[in-house]
């Protein structure tokens, strides 16, 4: 939907046609005043075109010469800069940073996945010590566990026929 300003501008520039033109012209309250306005804009256009047409540039060749020098200077500084430019340009820094973050994330995920079962095992039961006195029983094994959740220590013995008196708990 065009605004009044858009329709008016299009009408002044003879850009309205067909039904749109007819509808707009029929909506004008004062057709004669509108036509006068159109003529006024046409006069303004002629004045601006006559007075402002680009014909005042002098030293055109100097303009081009100066521009050529500026471009050449820019190219020279770019090539000189390129010859001594460090490897760590901004795009490369960005890429390196992104790759580093990705590698770090992968390692972190891998370590965390690996670490989880170990931590779970540690929190439940831990073998603290396993000792065997060969004089007491050659086939005997003694194992000590600590269960952190329940805050108890378990002494597990196997193959021991009797518990020596000096092993008694105090």
């Amino acid at each position: 939907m065009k605004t009044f300003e858009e329709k008016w501008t299009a009408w002044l520039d003879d850009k309205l046609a067909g039904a749109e033109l007819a509808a707009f012209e029929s909506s004008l309250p004062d057709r004669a005043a509108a036509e006068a306005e159109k003529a006024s804009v046409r006069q303004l256009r002629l004045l601006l075109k006559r007075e402002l047409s680009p014909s005042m540039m002098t030293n055109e060749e100097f303009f081009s010469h100066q521009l050529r020098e500026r471009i050449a200077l820019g190219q020279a500084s770019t090539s000189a800069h390129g010859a001594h430019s460090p490897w760590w340009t901004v795009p490369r820094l960005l890429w390196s940073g992104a790759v580093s973050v990705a590698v770090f994330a992968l390692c972190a995920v891998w370590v965390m996945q690996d670490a989880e079962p170990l931590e779970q095992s540690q929190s439940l039961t831990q073998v603290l010590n396993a000792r065997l006195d060969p004089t007491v029983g050659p086939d005997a094994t003694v194992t000590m566990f600590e269960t952190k959740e329940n805050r108890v220590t378990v002494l597990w013995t196997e193959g021991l026929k009797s518990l020596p008196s000096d092993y008694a708990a105090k």
Partner: protein
Amino acid sequence: MHTEATAAQPDVPELDLVKRCQKGDSEAFDELVTRYRTRVFGMVYNMVHNEQDAWDLAQDSFLKAWKSIVRFRGKSSFYTWLYRIVMNVTIDWIRKKQIKGSGAEFDDAIQLREIDPASKTVPKPDALPFENMERGEIRAQIDRAIAQLSPEHRAVILMKEIEDMQYNEIAESLGCSIGTVMSRLFYARKKLQNLLKDLYENI
């Protein structure tokens, strides 16, 4: 980059020149500059009303065009693309100058408030005898009137009335919609009619 003036090559299609520029051929760019320097300079001059500033801004615009020509994809004509750069450079410069300066050269809000969209422009009763006015004075009066427009309104009126550009070309050059172009044209014309009616009705 050669240092002598390049002979004009009017037969070479513009797109070929652009493609050569994109491969780093500065002589091809020199040809494009030769084709457009007068229009660009004239356009900028009409925006800023100072020859030295217009020269510098036209130079900056062409330099910027050279640096970014690899990004020109040919979706619009070259001059529309070039004008976009010229307008960005020029409008930015005018805005910065106004910020640095003592006060606003124009005021869009006041401008819109002062002009009734449906008003008819009426000659001022205290009109000067323009019949005897020198051409330089006429030009100065037009420059003063255009200086009262916002940079965007200046750009629109100059591209339409001087360059005969179509609405869609102006919209592309200024990065706005066609509706915005038409609306700006409406208010810019109203303003100039108010300021210059005495002049163009008495010539």
